[in-house]
């Protein structure tokens, strides 16, 4: 369209120029022609004038001859001669002027001798006058010869003049004709040029109008495109200059990236990229790739104005001018965050499906697997193809067929499967126990199921059941043993003591009876017998207590430690009497314990302290505690005989003693009892001592608040 208009302008202009050139040339030619015609007219006038001039010269010559003839004055002779030379010049001139006209030349050829005769005649008469005098001359003139000749000359000139007049007439007519032709030609050419110009103008105008209309359409379409791009909301369509600065901004860019056009136009587009991407040179890479290849597409994280990130698909296209120069880039960005998330979720689901250790499957109501995860192949050893090729029941242990089919039936009826167990066959012929959970999508006729391989648990469960049975058997045995022990200690309590009682009783009765008859030795023997019986009684009592401490139920209550200690100290009055003992008893915390048992503990420890400090005066007994790591550590310290630490491990054993009975009485059960009681209260017991420097016995009990806390 554009080129057509331009062509038309060029063609129209060229045509007009050619028309004008033609017109000019015509005018020029016409003017040259008319000038020639004019020249010829002028030439003719000149010839006519020259012819008339000749007549005058001849007249002058005749006049001068006549004067001379009349006067004889030489002046006239000279004038005659002068006229004669002028005639010669005139003739030359005339011949030149009429050189173009053969007829006039011929006439001139006739004229020339006539003039020469006339001039010779004139000179002859002048000669005659001078030599023969006036009369002779008059006589000659009187012949009239001269006059006839002159007449001939005049006639000849007139003929020439007539010819010239005739020529003039012709030439003037030609001049007029030329002038008219030129006028007509110019007129026609001008009209033609005007018409061509008008036509060109009309054509050009028409094309220009078309072009204006086309431009308007283009402008409207551009406006529509601009509006369209501007109002696209789902895509950020922006233009960048070659340096990457934002040139234009649309609604989509605003809604995706959060900037308004005012805020962002002129800024570098690296603003949309996370710092790390900018550091990695992504921004430069995009522009250089787009520049090199024309287009660059990339997906990645971008940053919004508020700093949040979105997953974007970006296409950068280089814009080039018609000359190929880089004008900038069009950058189209789509927010794919949702799709990305959906993809990630899908990916995760897929990965979950792939990685799951559980067997996940989709099975049809037709009894075939539709989809299985790799755990199936890993667990059973069958390939996927093998598993999909047969109904799933083919892989189920024949003993589990009925239950499995019943379960599938339930599922297709809309019930859920929870912890249904069956056995699947492995390729190697072994079976694995599966625990199923499943649901059916009834409209799709599909069962979605997951199974866990519980073979190991099954084995473990069986083992546990076995162990439990063993344990129960042991418990029964233990209970029987305990019962036996109880019966034993009951029996000990009753029956073992009776003979001792009898020994002592009858020794006393015997002694009473026979006292007078016994010597000292006899009495000593009786004393030893009675003492041994009593000692055995004490041993039995302590053993029974020890046994009871191990068996009887703990009855915990909150105990005031200090009052417990006071009771114990009071009960030791017989031991304490007559001794100096310095007591240092701290204010001690409450504990939660079995009162009788704990009393036993304090009684043993304090009793020991009193007993083993017997050689000291004064004896010092310190009772204190410290709280550490959630427990109370109580101690009873004395300055008694102490013990050697290398035997410390024997202190808490049953019947283990570090002293002989003669030194310090005792059965060797007290500390064993203490240990047993403290252990039953979740405490620890230990001792420190040095021979002859005293001993410290420690025991720990949980702090009360911890006990109450565990109770709740």
């Amino acid at each position, binding site marked *: 369209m554009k080129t057509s208009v331009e062509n038309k302008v060029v063609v129209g202009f060229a045509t007009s120029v050619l028309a004008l050139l033609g017109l000019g040339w015509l005018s020029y030619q016409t003017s040259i022609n008319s000038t020639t015609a004019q020249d010829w007219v002028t030439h003719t006038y000149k010839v006519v004038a020259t012819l008339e001039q000749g007549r005058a010269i001849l007249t002058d010559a005749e006049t001068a001859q006549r004067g001379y003839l009349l006067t004889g004055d030489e002046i006239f002779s000279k004038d005659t001669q002068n006229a004669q030379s002028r005639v010669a010049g005139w003739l030359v001139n005339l011949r030149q002027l009429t050189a173009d006209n053969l007829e006039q030349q011929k006439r001139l050829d006739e004229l020339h001798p006539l003039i020469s005769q006339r001039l010779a005649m004139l000179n002859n008469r002048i000669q005659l006058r001078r030599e023969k005098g006036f009369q002779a001359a008059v006589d000659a003139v009187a012949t009239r010869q001269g006059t006839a000749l002159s007449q001939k000359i005049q006639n000849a000139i007139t003929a020439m003049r007539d010819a010239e007049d005739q020529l003039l007439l012709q030439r003037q007519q030609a001049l007029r004709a030329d002038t008219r032709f030129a006028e007509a030609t110019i007129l026609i050419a001008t009209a033609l040029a005007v018409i061509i110009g008008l036509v060109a103008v009309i054509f050009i105008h028409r094309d220009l109008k078309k072009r204006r209309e086309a431009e308007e359409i283009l402008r409207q379409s551009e406006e529509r495109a601009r509006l369209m791009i501007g109002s696209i909301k789902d895509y950020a369509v922006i233009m960048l200059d070659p340096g990457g600065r934002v040139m234009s901004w649309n609604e989509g860019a605003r809604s995706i990236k959060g900037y308004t056009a005012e805020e962002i136009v002129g800024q570098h587009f690296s603003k949309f990229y996370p710092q790390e991407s900018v550091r990695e040179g992504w921004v430069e890479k995009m522009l250089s790739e787009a520049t090199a290849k024309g287009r660059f597409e990339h997906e990645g994280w971008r940053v919004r104005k508020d700093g949040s990130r979105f997953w974007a698909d970006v296409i950068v296209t280089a814009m080039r001018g018609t000359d190929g120069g880089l004008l900038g880039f069009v950058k189209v960005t789509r927010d794919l965050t949702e799709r990305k998330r959906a993809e990630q979720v899908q990916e995760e689901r897929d990965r979950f499906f792939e990685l799951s250790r559980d067997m996940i499957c989709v099975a049809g109501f037709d009894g075939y697997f539709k989809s299985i995860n790799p755990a199936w192949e890993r667990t059973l050893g069958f390939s996927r193809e093998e598993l999909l090729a047969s109904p799933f029941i083919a892989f189920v242990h024949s003993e589990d067929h009925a239950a499995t089919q019943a379960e599938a039936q339930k599922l297709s009826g809309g019930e859920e499967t929870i912890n249904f167990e069956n056995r699947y066959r492995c390729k190697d012929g072994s079976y694995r126990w599966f625990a199923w959970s499943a649901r059916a999508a009834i409209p799709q006729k599909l069962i979605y199921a997951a199974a866990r391989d519980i073979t190991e648990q099954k084995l473990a469960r069986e083992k546990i059941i076995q162990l439990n049975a063993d344990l129960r058997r042991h418990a029964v045995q233990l209970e029987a043993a305990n019962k036996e022990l109880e019966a034993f200690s*009951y029996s000990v309590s*009753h029956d073992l003591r*009776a003979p001792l*009682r009898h020994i002592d009783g*009858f020794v006393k009765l015997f002694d009473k009876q026979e006292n007078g008859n016994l010597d000292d030795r006899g009495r000593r023997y009786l004393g030893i017998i009675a003492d041994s019986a009593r000692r055995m009684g004490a041993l039995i*009592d302590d053993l029974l207590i020890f046994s009871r401490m191990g068996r009887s139920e703990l009855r915990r209550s909150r105990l005031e430690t200090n009052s417990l200690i006071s009771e114990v100290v009071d009960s030791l009055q017989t031991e304490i009497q007559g001794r100096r003992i310095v007591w240092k008893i701290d204010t001690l915390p409450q504990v939660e314990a079995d009162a009788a048992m704990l009393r036993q503990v304090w009684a043993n420890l304090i009793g020991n302290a009193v007993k083993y400090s017997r050689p000291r005066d004064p004896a010092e007994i310190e009772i204190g505690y410290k709280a550490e790591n959630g427990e109370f550590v109580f101690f009873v310290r004395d300055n008694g005989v102490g013990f050697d630490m290398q035997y410390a491990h024997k202190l808490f054993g049953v019947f283990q003693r570090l002293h002989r009975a003669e030194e310090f009485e005792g059965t060797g059960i007290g500390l064993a009892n203490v240990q047993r009681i403290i252990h039953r209260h979740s405490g620890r017991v230990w001792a420190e001592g040095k021979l002859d420097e005293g001993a410290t016995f420690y025991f720990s009990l949980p702090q009360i608040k911890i006990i109450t806390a565990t109770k709740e």
Partner: protein
Amino acid sequence: MAPLKRILLVEDSERDIELTLAALEENNLANEVVVARDGAEALDYLYGRGKFAGHANGLPVVVLLDLKMPKVDGLEVLRQMRNDTGLKHVPVVMITSSREEQDLVKSYQLGVNAYVVKPVDFQQFVDSVKEIGFFWAIINEPPPGSLKRHG
């Protein structure tokens, strides 16, 4: 000698009977002591049946009852006595070798009046018997129907 309040001693061991009687004697508590050699005999005595049939026994002021006996043990005797309206108020002192808690608990549950552990040391036993006899046979006013001291 004026008859003192009658004491029923229920004991299977001959030796214990001898020692107990010696202890009572030592404490001048030579009341009329009826000895039953097991629980069955004790009940026969209390109900006036078996070998005690026909005796106008009357109830003892106190029953000294051994716990562990063949046939019917002390706890069973105590149980039957406490379930019998005629016998339920008769004081019963359990005299036993056992320190077993379960025995103690059961005895008291059944309504024993006292519980004495026979110590190995004879002298202590003598002291205990003295206290028991003194309290139950002399100080304590027995329920009506018990044999009173005569004249």
